[in-house]
């Protein structure tokens, strides 16, 4: 793995991503009226300074080590073990499955999305017995429907596909 100042390049990524966000935020803030941008600009500038310090603290240079000792002494070391234990693909899949479920809710609504997602999560991913998965998906859907629609009288989102125009 490539290293810069003694630290794996990948370990700079979180701070770099935050830096990019803060810079984009700052650029947007400057498009507002002076009074409206006063606070956002100050916060964005302060965040940029802090992120730069965070970046420096990740290096194995004397400055980095001093910063870590003073302000980040118990920050987790960037362990290769964690990367091996939980492969990136597994993590990406876990995050994407949530977004997939949300997309399904937006399109088909809760009543259709919930059983599909629960079945997919328990049967296709969890590899549980088919009957159990069917039972769980029906039970969870009934629970959600009874709790929100019957007990709380909250009409669940019907989905773009089934929404009455």
């Amino acid at each position, binding site marked *: 793995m490539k290293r810069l100042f003694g630290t794996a390049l990948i370990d700079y990524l*979180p701070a770099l991503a*935050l830096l990019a*966000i*803060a810079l984009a935020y700052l650029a947007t*803030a400057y498009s*507002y*009226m002076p*009074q*409206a*941008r006063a*606070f*956002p600009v100050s*916060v*964005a500038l*302060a*965040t940029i300074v*802090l*992120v730069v*310090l*965070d970046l420096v*603290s990740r290096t194995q240079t004397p400055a980095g080590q001093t*910063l870590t*000792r*003073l*302000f*980040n*002494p*118990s*920050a*987790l070391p960037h362990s290769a073990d964690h990367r091996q234990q*939980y492969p990136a693909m597994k*993590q990406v899949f*876990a*995050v994407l*499955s*949530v*977004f997939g*479920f*949300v997309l399904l*809710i*937006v399109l088909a609504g809760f009543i259709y999305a*919930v059983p599909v*997602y*629960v079945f997919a*999560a*328990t049967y296709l*991913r*969890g590899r*549980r017995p088919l009957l159990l998965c069917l039972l*769980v998906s029906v039970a*969870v859907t009934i*629970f*959600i429907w009874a*709790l*929100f629609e019957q007990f*709380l*009288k909250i*009409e*669940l*989102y019907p989905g773009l596909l089934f929404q009455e125009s």
Partner: protein
Amino acid sequence: MLELWLGGLNGLLHVDVLFFVFLGMVIGLIFGAIPGLGGTTAIALLMPLTYGMEPFTALALAGGVMGAVPMGGSITSILLNTPGTAPNAATCLDGYPLAQQGKAGMAIGAAGSANAIGAIIGTISVLAVLPFANELVLLFGPPEFALMGLFALAVVATASRGKMLRGLVAGGLGLMIAFVGYNDIAGGERFTYGVEYLWDGIHLVPALIGLFAVAEMINLTVKGGTVAKSAAAVKITSMTSGLFETFRHLGTVLRGSLIGTTVGAIPGLGGTVVAFLSYSVTVQSSKNPETFGKGNIQGVIAPEAAICAHDCSALVPTLAFGIPAGAEMAVFMGLLVIHGMQPGPLMLRDHMVEIYGLIWALTASCVLASFVGLLFVRPLSKITLLDTRILVPLVLSTALAGSFAIDMTIENVVVTSVFGALGYLMVRYDYPRLMVVVALVLGGNIERNFHQSMLMGEGGWSVFFSRTISIILIIATVAVLSLPLFRGIFRQLWIRKAPVERSRL
């Protein structure tokens, strides 16, 4: 005075009124446990049902709901890392690690008893303070509110002890998110990129459900297995151990209750800030701060005691000035108006018996809900042994439906999922999430009060240095922020000095 206290208590001691307190408690427990709902939704839904009730009975019902919500929220926070209500997010930090260690029973027991004691201390304080409420609340103006917000941020940042720099970065990110939406100072919207939903800003509860519940479900999907590592450990936990732990850390309970009572009475800060502040101060004052976040029982006791104490003291600005201390209190004010009571100084003069009745009902509900929670510790703990392949879809579906139910907008669900991914990344890359939460709550408040202060001072900064409380808050903020720096320097000096002295010896 005593006559009024007893009058309120006497009004409560009727079978029909007690029934409504109990009903409110059950509803509060349920609403508190379901992510996204909480006391605000419960009172809003119950409001039309109270039309035909006597004002005292309606207030007893509302008190029952408000008192039980924290206990309901703490149960899901501990068992599933899913805060039922926003303030319970602080309980997740140590409650959930305890559940993972198979000590869910102990954590729920401690949360319940801390809740009950916090409520009693809060009640006593409010009963004592209410007659002087007017003078106390007037001590705080926009400069003090702005500085108090900054102080709260500083305290919470330093509580991410050992990770202050990353805590501040997370705080910056939280503040940036907090400024999204319509700006009521200069007018016009900011950072909405044409999305109408964002005009109201990022809604706190959907964001919290994402940061904690969804992030944890992603984490469990990646890890697999069960929440608790061992079934044997869950079996041996008992509610009594949690009770004992609370009494063993009575100082933590008292400190949390004190923070809940004093800070909770300041409008705009709300239960979430109070809970995190109490947690942060407990971490700072602990001899073993490194054990927090890994399952330290004091990390459960401190916020829970503060939340219930805050619920009582939040009534002070709401009733005395008509300034709601949070969303729940704002809805509650609506209920007061429906029953012909106008919050403000006149309410303190004309409806004292109802007010004391409400306070007693709230306290009774807090204590009762804690007992009910304690009774169900054992069966509830079993949830932590459920296979994550079944648990994750169930919790995720409920959390997303709860997020939608807040104000029936599907965008809430999208926000929840985005914050879920953000929360997971923050855990994965070791950035403290509590700073994002506190910054989200306080960001708008700090900005609004800062601009109001500048208007008061006609553009000059002297307004921040002209009152005693402001100066105390500035000194306290600087002291809190420089603490880790001095601690680090002293530690280095000590390390350098120690070998020299040892060699002399």
